[in-house]
């Protein structure tokens, strides 16, 4: 099907030179040929002085208008990436805070308080600290961790060797004495472990008695700046 517009564009671009049945297009081709022939015979046309003055004024006015428009539009366009980034950042922070609200206080400074065990031998405090970590470790041991079990047994033996000295150093601190007694019985069980089921039983006992919490109770307490 003949498309007048398409044919005329192709004809100008010299993509087609085929004759055409369309009367209007045939007339368009003839007129255009006449105009082009006439222009070619006159040679290059030099614009007048007046034209160049007008051109200069028009160009300046156009530039002013463009710059003004660009300024209005530019304040949006130029800041768009910055605003978008800021919005993303705000959303990210809000999202992270919702997931993990404690980050609000992430920069809280701390100090240590040891008034609650004033008078308790420092060696005992160090022993409690070490014992706490040993027990945390033991509660994570899987029966298949042969090396870890052996390590726990060795450490239990070493801690038992120090136990009498630690208890003597505890003095009148009844809660620490109670905790060390419980811990001693756990250490003996660890030292004498002989089956995988024993491990689960001991781990359960440690959790049920809250032994880790008790070992922690008479160590320095972290005090947040806001609580001072």
């Amino acid at each position: 099907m003949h498309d007048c517009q398409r044919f005329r564009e192709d004809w100008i671009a010299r993509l087609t030179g085929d004759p055409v049945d369309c009367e209007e297009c045939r007339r368009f081709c003839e007129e255009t040929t006449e105009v082009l022939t006439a222009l070619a015979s006159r040679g290059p046309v030099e614009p007048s002085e007046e034209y160049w003055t007008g051109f200069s004024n028009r160009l300046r006015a156009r530039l002013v208008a463009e710059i003004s428009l660009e300024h209005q539009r530019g304040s949006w366009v130029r800041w768009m990436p910055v605003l978008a980034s800021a919005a993303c950042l705000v959303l990210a922070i809000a999202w992270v805070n919702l997931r993990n609200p404690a980050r609000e206080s992430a920069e809280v400074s701390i100090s240590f308080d040891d008034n609650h065990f004033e008078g308790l031998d420092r060696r005992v405090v160090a022993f409690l600290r070490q014992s706490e970590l040993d027990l945390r470790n033991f509660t994570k041991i899987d029966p298949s961790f042969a090396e870890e079990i052996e390590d726990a047994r060795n450490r239990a033996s070493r801690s038992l060797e120090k136990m009498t000295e630690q208890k003597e150093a505890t003095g009148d601190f009844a809660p620490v004495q109670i905790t060390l007694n419980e811990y001693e019985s756990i250490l003996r069980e660890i030292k004498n472990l002989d089956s995988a089921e024993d491990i689960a039983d001991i781990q359960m006992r440690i959790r049920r008695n809250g032994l880790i919490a008790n070992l922690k109770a008479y160590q320095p307490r972290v005090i947040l700046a806001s609580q001072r």
Partner: protein
Amino acid sequence: MVVLGLSLATPSLLRAQLASQNTARTLFNEGRDLWDEGKFVDAERKFREALTKYPKAEQSDRTAYYLITTLVSLGRTPEARMEIENFNRNYPQSRWKSDVEEKRLAISGLPSIQWGQYQLGLRGHNVGGPPRAVPAGVVRGTKEPGSPPGLTIHTNPNVSLDQEVLRLIIEMDFPEGIRLSRERLKGNPSDPAVIANFSTIGSGNPSQALPFLLTVAGDAQSSPHTRTQAVFVVRRRVMKEEESVPVVADTLSRFGDVERRNAVDQMVQARQVEGAAVLQKIYRASSNPAVRMQIVESVGSAPDASTVPFLSEVARNEKELGVRRIAIQSLARLPNVDVKMWEGILKTLPPPGVRGPAK
């Protein structure tokens, strides 16, 4: 060809992995030994080396936890926080997750009291709305079967995490911490998360802390260990601060007979170096004859040489004759009491025919 190549490469690959594993373990053990000796800076170096060189080694999550603990011990909290973030990113399924969460709370605090209540599973009377958010991965425990009506108490498998949350609530809002502790003890009179916080409670406002601890000491439901620990904290407070003595005396005067006897007996049983001194202070501070009577009865139930001066003082100076009588009876059970002391007591007794108020 590929299969042949793989079968040849696998043993050497396994050997290399095993070697890495062993080196990582050695570094960890060295770090832990240094940590045990309190050489935290050197320990930190070893833990960091293990994590940097062998980040994929088995139990590197444990090494990361030790590193965090070391940094907290050194007071380098910004670095500890950074390592906590690394831990959560690198080991989302770690068994050490709740231990790390405990550290995070200790150095960053609770987001809110409500969050702590939620974490402890205490969302009963007088507790506000739900928390804004709960950190992912923190394990909520199972419901305690003996929860009091109107309360939902859960216990966490990691008791020390509960202890830390409760401690932070006590530090932030003391009355609320006491209330929550009381509620938890209703569910489990030997709740270790509460008992491990007795010393924190004992450092708070005496007018709230001491009645709470004395109630625990006087409660027949509490285990002997629980009562011993409660009394220990009361005793220390009384010895440290004179102003706490009237609070203890007043609390005991408001107790029923059984509760009062339990609490005072516990103090006598837990008597060590300062035990007698504590009871004498309370005796002198109390205007309530029933409290004084109970103290003398409890002290006199197993008199020994160290209690003679106190009982003798009561026998001479106590206004209530009933209380005096108990002191004299207790002294009479002791062998080798100085005759001069008896003479002194007899001189202070009222003339025959004058009776003191009925017991």
